[in-house]
């Protein structure tokens, strides 16, 4: 089946098996291996990407063909120019990752969260990332990392108030 999808700003056309999952499409057809696969039951969230700019989706729960006509942002699309996205900076600054396997999914879930809720409480952050499992960090520094970015977003608003 034909699929036409914009990923990280670039339009791609491919002919794929109908059963191909979006996660494998990104990894194998487009070589975007930052999107990881950690389970077979849509439990782990390692494969989360942003659909149409602000919806966090587990790319293992979508067929590639379902993304036809849509826009996908993956972890590779966060950095602009040579400048890290503030969330990436936050994860680095706050030691929000260890083995790095869950990190791309965590980043994309929090990216979508902050689009909807730029000033989440710690409880809201924890609820938002509860579909993303991490075995290394115990989440505490991930919450701090997302908080760091939220503080960046909210700083100018505080000034103007």
């Amino acid at each position, binding site marked *: 089946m034909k699929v036409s999808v914009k990923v990280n700003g670039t339009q791609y056309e491919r002919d794929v098996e109908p059963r191909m999952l979006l996660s494998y499409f990104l990894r194998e057809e487009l070589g975007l291996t930052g999107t990881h696969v950690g389970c077979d039951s849509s439990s782990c969230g390692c494969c989360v990407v942003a659909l149409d700019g602000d919806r966090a989706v587990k790319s293992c729960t979508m067929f590639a063909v379902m993304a036809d006509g849509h826009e996908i942002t993956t972890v590779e699309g966060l950095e602009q120019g040579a400048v890290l996205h503030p969330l990436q900076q936050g994860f680095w600054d706050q030691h929000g990752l260890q083995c790095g396997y869950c990190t791309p999914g965590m980043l994309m879930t929090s990216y979508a969260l902050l689009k909807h809720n730029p000033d989440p409480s710690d409880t809201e952050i924890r609820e938002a990332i509860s579909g993303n499992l991490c075995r*290394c960090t115990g989440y505490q520094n991930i919450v701090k990392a997302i908080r760091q970015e939220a503080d960046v977003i909210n700083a100018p608003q505080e000034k103007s108030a």
Partner: protein
Amino acid sequence: MTTTDKPRHAIGLSMKRKEDPRFIRGRGRYVDDIVLPNMLHLALVHSPYPHARIKNIDSTAALAVPGVKAVLTGKDLEAAGLAWIPTFHGYDKQMVLAVGKVLYQYQEVAGVVAETREAAHDGAELVEVDYEPLDPVVDPFEARKDTIILRDDRENKTNHIYHWEVGAREETDKALAASDVHIKERIYFQRCHPAPLEPCGGIADMNPATGRLTIYMTSQAPHAHRTVVSLVTGIPEDKIHIISPDIGGGFGNKVPVYPGYVVAAVASVVLKVPVKWIETRTENLTTTGFARDYHMDVEIGADKDGKVTALKVGTVADHGAFDAAADPTKYPAGLFGIVTGSYDFPHAFTELDAYFTNKAPGGVAYRCSFRVTEASYAIERGMDLLAGRLGMDAVELRRRNFVGKDQFPYRSQLGFVYDSGDYHATLDKALEAIGYDTLRKEQAECRARGELMGIGISTFTEVVGAGPSKHFDIMGIKMFDSAEIRIHPTGSGIVRAGTRHQGQGHETTWAQIVAEELGLDPQNLIVEEGDTDTAPYGLGTYASRSTPVAGGALALASRKIREKARKIAAHVLEVAEDDVEWENYAFTVKGVPGKTITMKEVAFAAYTNPVPGTEPGLEATFYYDPPNMTFPNGAYIAVVSVDPETGETKVKRFVAVDDCGVVINPMIVEGQIHGGLTEGYAIAFMQEIRYDEGGNHMNTNFTEYLVPTAVETPVWETGSTVTPSPHHPIGAKGVGESPNVGSPAAFVNAVMDALSPLGITHLDMPLTREKVWRAIRDAKAAKAATA
């Protein structure tokens, strides 16, 4: 030995991690990210039965799937002499693909190789295996009766694998009999699974042109795996190249060799193209190394003042279908002898019997040093049961029995020589942080209102850093580790070690150790691990051994470089070598203030102005054989509330004070503690690999085998005391596993403390809502019946 008293150049600093820039960009390189030209894919066929004879395997339908290239069975492997491979310590062997019969559900029976992953899995569904089901043996206590013998391939027709014991049985029995107070409890540490988020996998690439077999694999111990592959296959070791790329968590799961790697290698040799095998989550949970599964009878005696007199622990271990437990060769029950914990027992004895059952093989250490978690849980639970029996506060009982600060080095009755510690100080710090006295008052008020609140203590001691070569080996290979450091002319350098990190941060902390020793910039020291062609030989990363063993090698290799650098410094400064001193991270000349040369300048001289008649360059290799193990310890306190209506436990607070000796990077240490506590929480409340009576695996994916999410994971409060290890070159002890070793007992002790007004004294993990609710219901019914 160094301490943290003076300002440091690199050690002790919370440096941001050098490995992170690639991970936050999605540019890590995990094994499934690697694609080689003409690569084929392997999918495995698994047994639906836990115990069955294989009557026939028909591959016809599978071979008819477009893209399928080959189907491999146990018979094909037999022809290659690879149907069986030795287990971890070499005492047993395990099937790669089943021959004759299957011994556990999901056991690997055949492998399908195809052009795409999808075709391989389609083919695997169509391999028809004709089984004759046999009665399974699921319970080790049933296995012990030898009614059904599982392993007819073995000479000894028994399910009993081995007996192991240490300590003085008679003296311990006598002391227990003479004790004023005595507790005995069967404590089960359930079968659980490390479940790293990245499953296991590999790519085998036999290059017919060079005759070299390259294996990319999720390996915590690449050198050991190279040697094992060579010994098992007969391929010369120089023709084997193991590359362990970025690893998405290991926690012990990626120490053993699994059938998938072997089948992929055989397929690559036969088909002369690279073959990739990537596990599914179900395969990971059902076939690869589980952890624990120890049934422990714990007995402690004490006098009426609460001074312990003796400890005895008898264990029945369920090893599953093969004796594939990951323990050093001379330690079949791992380091279980640490079971005397932080306490000065005058008498102790422990014994263990291991049995085969129709369950997956394993016995890896899930974020722990060889059975230390089981032992720590046994003693810390046992001490709380004893406190309950004595009617004494759990803190006071521990204080009365701690090994004193002045007793180190302390030789335990079970043979370990503890290096250092200050258990009273560590506990005091934790008590102060949590506000213990206030909490006990609060608890009394809660109880008066009928609320179930509990406080749980765990003051554990680990034994890590395997290990000294006179005691520790795996299949004969001594458990040293190594470092190789090359300093470039401009003062940067490359550091390689025999370890392989999986998130521990070695790319940062190894650079910090070398930078501290040489006064160089850690940002300009690149760290490389995991490639057997380039790294010096080492036994890998598990059992908290990296810092205690490779960390020592790194410091001592650096010091070799510093000694050579001193000669170069003397040559450049035109003074006698004896007049050159290493001070404030540079070379100075005795009595001549201001006459200094930095290591960076020395490095340049090593290549541009070498000492005449000596070897140019500036590099060193060191193989470090540690003189002793290290003994990290800590005091953990959990505060919980239990809902009597639902059985749900909430962790209200958790304080962890760790003493892991000298800290290399406090940020990384804290991160390790957060992660380990979360895994301890998972084990205490959620995780168990269960089999039903028919031998069916009940926890085959992440909806049935739970990993805590951010919502239920508690907020961790951490603290530290520093008692340097006297024998380690930088005084460090290792920390990655302490929180997972120490915390389960703190959680369970807290819940039991909460439930104690109901007369409940012990429940086995995991403390699920259902289990706790049932216990409360039964306790209330029993009370009502006697009232």
